[in-house]
């Protein structure tokens, strides 16, 4: 029982990270129907950028104070992620906006490879997992219950809190603000939106930027929770997040968050209880991905895709 609870907690934490990344996937797909394959790598770059902020930018005296270091690391990670996403959108995806749909997907693949390789080659020591500083926000809370010990760390709580708050803020922004309306309009029909005075390019860049910022923040949270970051996580978490976005229904904020938590829980529980254990936990997620895409491509919360006339 205690094991189950512990696995549930682990799953929620993992799910929180996935949810933050999935938000970016779902927003970008919602607005320009692009599977931004490189989004997982943006998350990975965010993790490295915040680590770089810590290692190379922050003065030593600030490093021990989490309330100084952590926000600045988050800002560093998010900033680099946003700049990257904007460059990516402008130079790789925008020229292909009217191209057949496979062209941007292949480009996204290329961008993803380039980002991963760039970090692997040029970040000092990134050919292996790079350790994160851990001392400054590592507090474990544990209780004895159900015949075992259940532990949750401060970083885990932070991760869950940030992803939930992020999703709520994002949902409010999209449904209430002027830019949010512009986003929804562009997603519905870019040409008409343009006629109504919405600048689709600016809206799309903004969508990329918001998604990237969330992914960058996810990067730093991932780093401090799992205490390291490596170049492989981008691809893996990109797939997780994409699965989450599809599971929840592409284009739906709520769906991305619930999908994210669901994937986290499935991975964690499958690793514990299904045959094959952690060796096969990814396989279950991939099977889930295939099943969802084949049988319910609109996801759990999406509407069946209406044909746009």
């Amino acid at each position, binding site marked *: 029982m205690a094991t189950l609870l512990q696995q549930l907690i682990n799953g929620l934490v993992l799910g929180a990270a996935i949810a933050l990344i999935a938000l970016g996937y779902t927003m970008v797909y919602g607005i320009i129907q692009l599977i931004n394959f490189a989004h997982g790598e943006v998350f990975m770059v965010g993790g490295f950028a915040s680590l770089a902020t810590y290692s190379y930018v922050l003065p030593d005296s600030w490093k021990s104070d989490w309330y100084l270091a952590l926000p600045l690391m988050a800002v560093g990670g998010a900033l680099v992620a946003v700049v990257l996403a904007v460059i990516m959108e402008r130079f790789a995806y925008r020229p292909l906006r009217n191209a057949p749909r496979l062209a941007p997907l292949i480009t996204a693949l290329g961008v993803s490879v380039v980002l991963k390789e760039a970090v692997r080659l040029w970040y000092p020591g990134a050919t292996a997992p790079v350790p994160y500083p851990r001392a400054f926000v590592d507090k474990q809370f544990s209780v004895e219950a159900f015949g075992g010990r259940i532990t949750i760390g401060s970083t885990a709580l932070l991760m869950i809190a940030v992803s939930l708050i992020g999703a709520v803020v994002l949902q409010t922004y999209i449904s209430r603000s002027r830019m949010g309306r512009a986003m929804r309009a562009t997603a519905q029909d870019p040409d008409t939106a343009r006629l109504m005075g919405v600048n689709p390019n600016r809206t799309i860049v903004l969508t990329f930027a918001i998604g990237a910022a969330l992914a960058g923040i996810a990067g730093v949270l991932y780093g401090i929770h799992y205490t390291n970051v490596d170049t492989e996580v981008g691809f893996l978490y990109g797939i997780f997040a994409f699965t989450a976005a599809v599971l929840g229904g592409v284009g739906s904020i709520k769906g991305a968050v619930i999908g994210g938590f669901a994937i986290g829980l499935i991975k964690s529980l499958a690793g514990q209880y299904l045959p094959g254990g952690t060796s096969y936990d990814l396989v279950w997620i991939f099977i889930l991905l295939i099943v969802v895409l084949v049988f319910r*491509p609109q996801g759990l919360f999406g509407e069946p*895709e209406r*044909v*746009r*006339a």
Partner: protein
Amino acid sequence: MTATPVLSASNVSMVFGGLTALSEVSLQLHEGQILGLIGPNGAGKTTFFNCLTGLYTPTRGTVTLRGRTLPSDPAAVTVAGIARTFQNIRLFPSMTALENVMVGRHSRMKQGPLASLFHGPAYRKGEADARARSLELLDFVGLTGLDDELARNLPYGDQRRLEIARALATDPAVLLLDEPTAGMNPQETEAARQLIFAIRETGVAVVVIEHDTKFIFSLCDHVSVLVQGQLLVEGAPEVVRGDPRVIEAYLGKPPDEVEAEVRQYAEEAGRPSAAESTMVIPPVRERDGGSEGGNR
């Protein structure tokens, strides 16, 4: 006219969610007939068309081709003998004109993957036959000598012709034309009319959806008018043309106010030379129109 119709729709209804797009529409197409289907936007013409091509399975009612119920798969419908063109031309743009038509021969060729792989004598004969028939069809629609052009490099009018040739290549009993003259100038429209007459001569029955009522009245043997998912009027063109309900449905005014005006159009309709004053309902895409298939 023979007694048994080639194509027969009886009491076809189509309901999307709670919305009734078609209710109890019946229609019969006889051997050697050209049937026109007209109606204002949103009348359900395209929905009905999709029921005839197997894209939709009617909620109620049946469509039969020579007495047999239509299968609910577009490919099978084509094999059964109904060919179609598309409202917004949908050729295979980077194939040549000839290859486009040869794709139309697909379902009439007996060439399995193994024959394709080994290019034996049966393959060569099949290819030669398909090629000959396709070239013949290109000649028939007036695209002689353009067989090696890429479809996307053809002018607009020729693309429409090519689409018809491609549809004819499936050896259909019935040809469905979805707005064949959309975007055409008067000369091209007249050429299209002659082409459709020529197609009828070859023994293929034709159904035409059009907004251009003048074109329909000067072309068809039989005209059906759909309004709000229901069959409002049907009959010979001259009968339908004068029906006050049709005029009201089209113009939304009491008939007497516009009667004179319409009569003038109707008269001109008989004379192709007065082409400028065509009564055209602008082709705005319908709710369910344009993008057949859906993401299933």
